[in-house]
């Protein structure tokens, strides 16, 4: 009990028993990543088309920025509780919350990506006879790809850091360790769970940063 809980957390992580079985770290980490991927994917299906439309046409920009701002201000734990009371415990409630959490970054990334294309370049494309769809997909998106990925990066890091809340309402993920440690005053376990979430967040952040660099069009600086 008197031992430093951080040392305890490292010992907890070093125990081979923790790395196997249905409640082992690999299973929980995969669950955690799965919730994150699903949340960001669903949010991207909603937010990216809207963001591209807003960025390309310049319409509803104020509305999009306003809505994203409101969504950013919503407390995720409150949303999880609210949705769980409406739809019951399980994965649906936290997933809906993660989608709402991820939308602002994705939306901002998408419309700023399109907006960032040099108007002269876009005009040149239009003068060459490209359709609006061709301009969007062959000029604006490729040029803005690093910003678009930047939006995905922001959303992913936020969701992976928040996905522990899935365990609040009966689902799995690394949040299980955090809540179980908190509830039974097993602080090494709680810190170990937190460290695992931090590692996942850092790894995902770095991976998406690399993707941002790689997708930067030749001749432009990465964002």
């Amino acid at each position, binding site marked *: 009990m008197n031992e430093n809980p951080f040392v305890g957390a490292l010992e907890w992580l070093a125990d081979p028993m923790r790395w196997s079985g249905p409640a082992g770290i690999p299973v929980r980490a995969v669950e955690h990543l799965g919730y994150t991927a699903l949340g960001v994917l669903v949010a991207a299906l909603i937010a990216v088309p809207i963001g591209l439309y807003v960025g390309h046409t310049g319409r509803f920009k104020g509305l999009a920025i306003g809505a994203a701002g409101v969504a950013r201000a919503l407390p995720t734990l409150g949303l999880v*509780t609210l949705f*769980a*009371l409406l739809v*019951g*415990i*399980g994965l649906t409630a936290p997933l809906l919350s993660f989608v709402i959490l991820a939308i602002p970054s994705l939306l901002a990334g998408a419309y700023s990506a399109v907006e960032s294309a040099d108007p002269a370049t876009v005009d040149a494309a239009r003068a060459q006879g490209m359709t609006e769809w061709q301009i969007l997909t062959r000029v604006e998106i490729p040029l803005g790809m690093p910003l678009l990925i930047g939006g995905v990066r922001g959303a992913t890091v936020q969701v992976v850091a928040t996905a522990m809340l899935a*365990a*609040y*309402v*009966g689902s799995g993920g690394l949040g*299980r360790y955090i*809540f*179980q440690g908190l*509830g*039974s005053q097993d602080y090494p376990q709680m810190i170990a769970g937190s460290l695992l979430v931090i590692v996942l967040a850092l790894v995902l952040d770095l991976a998406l940063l690399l993707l941002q660099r790689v997708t930067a069009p030749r001749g432009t600086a990465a964002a």
Partner: protein
Amino acid sequence: MSIHSTRRHLLGALGAGGLALGAAACGSSDPFEEGEDGTGSGGSDDGGEAPAGALAVGSQAYYSNEIVAELFAQVLEKAGFTVDRQFQIGQREVYMPELESGALDLLPEYLGNLLQHYEPDAGSASPEEVHSSLEGALPEGLRVLSFAEASDQDSYTTTSDFASAHSLAAIGDLASVDEKLTIAANSEFETRPYGPEGAKSVYGVDIAVVPVEDSGGPLTVQALLDGDVQLADIYSADPSIAENDLVVLEDPESMILPQNVVPVVSEKIDEKAAEAIEGVIAELSADDLVELNRQSVVDQASSADIATGWLTEKGLL
């Protein structure tokens, strides 16, 4: 309301008067000296014998605990003591050292949890046995008074439909239920002696935990009502049990640690103060505690008003 507050002010004034009198009579005195001789009993003119001033009454950061603390505070004021309310002090790890150091004099506690704070390996037993173990486990200078019938403990609770469909009255009856049983509870329930392992070894019941982390709150109740789980760990004094017509399964083997309300007190609580507190304890039934909680959760009444109402009704104020 105005009558109550007037009366409270009057009592406060009386208490302060007694204090001033006592201070004048004693001249100088060490606040930590008294109580040692244990003769702090006596009449109201003796009330000045507590020159340290007020009795510090604490409570956990838990609405129900605060109501019980308020009950104690008000009967102490009625008995002529001055009370310093130190409510909403987080967890046991924070307030027990305050009691041990003498910064707090009284706090409503719960039998089993208090025992396990000092003896983490203490197993479950009847309330009487836990109470007597507790008397030996408390550090020097602290003691517990009698415990109330009212208890606020973990429970295996189910819906009345499920209970009647499978004719369930006690936890052991679950053994004959022919379907996979799950219980919604905080994840630490998994590691508690009264969790799945206890249910298996004591009652031969197989049960899996579905972690819902709101400590038997609305999400846990909702999961039970939605049929996502067949059972839920809901604190037995929670008004939602009666409100939703839920059934708390009996625990004849005392597998679940009993959590009857018990006041833990410092040496500054003399016989007269203890007597006032015991008056509340003797009256506080399980149904009473549920009703007090209900007034807080459903009616949103303040702890002070709830306490005054109940004490008046019981003739203690």
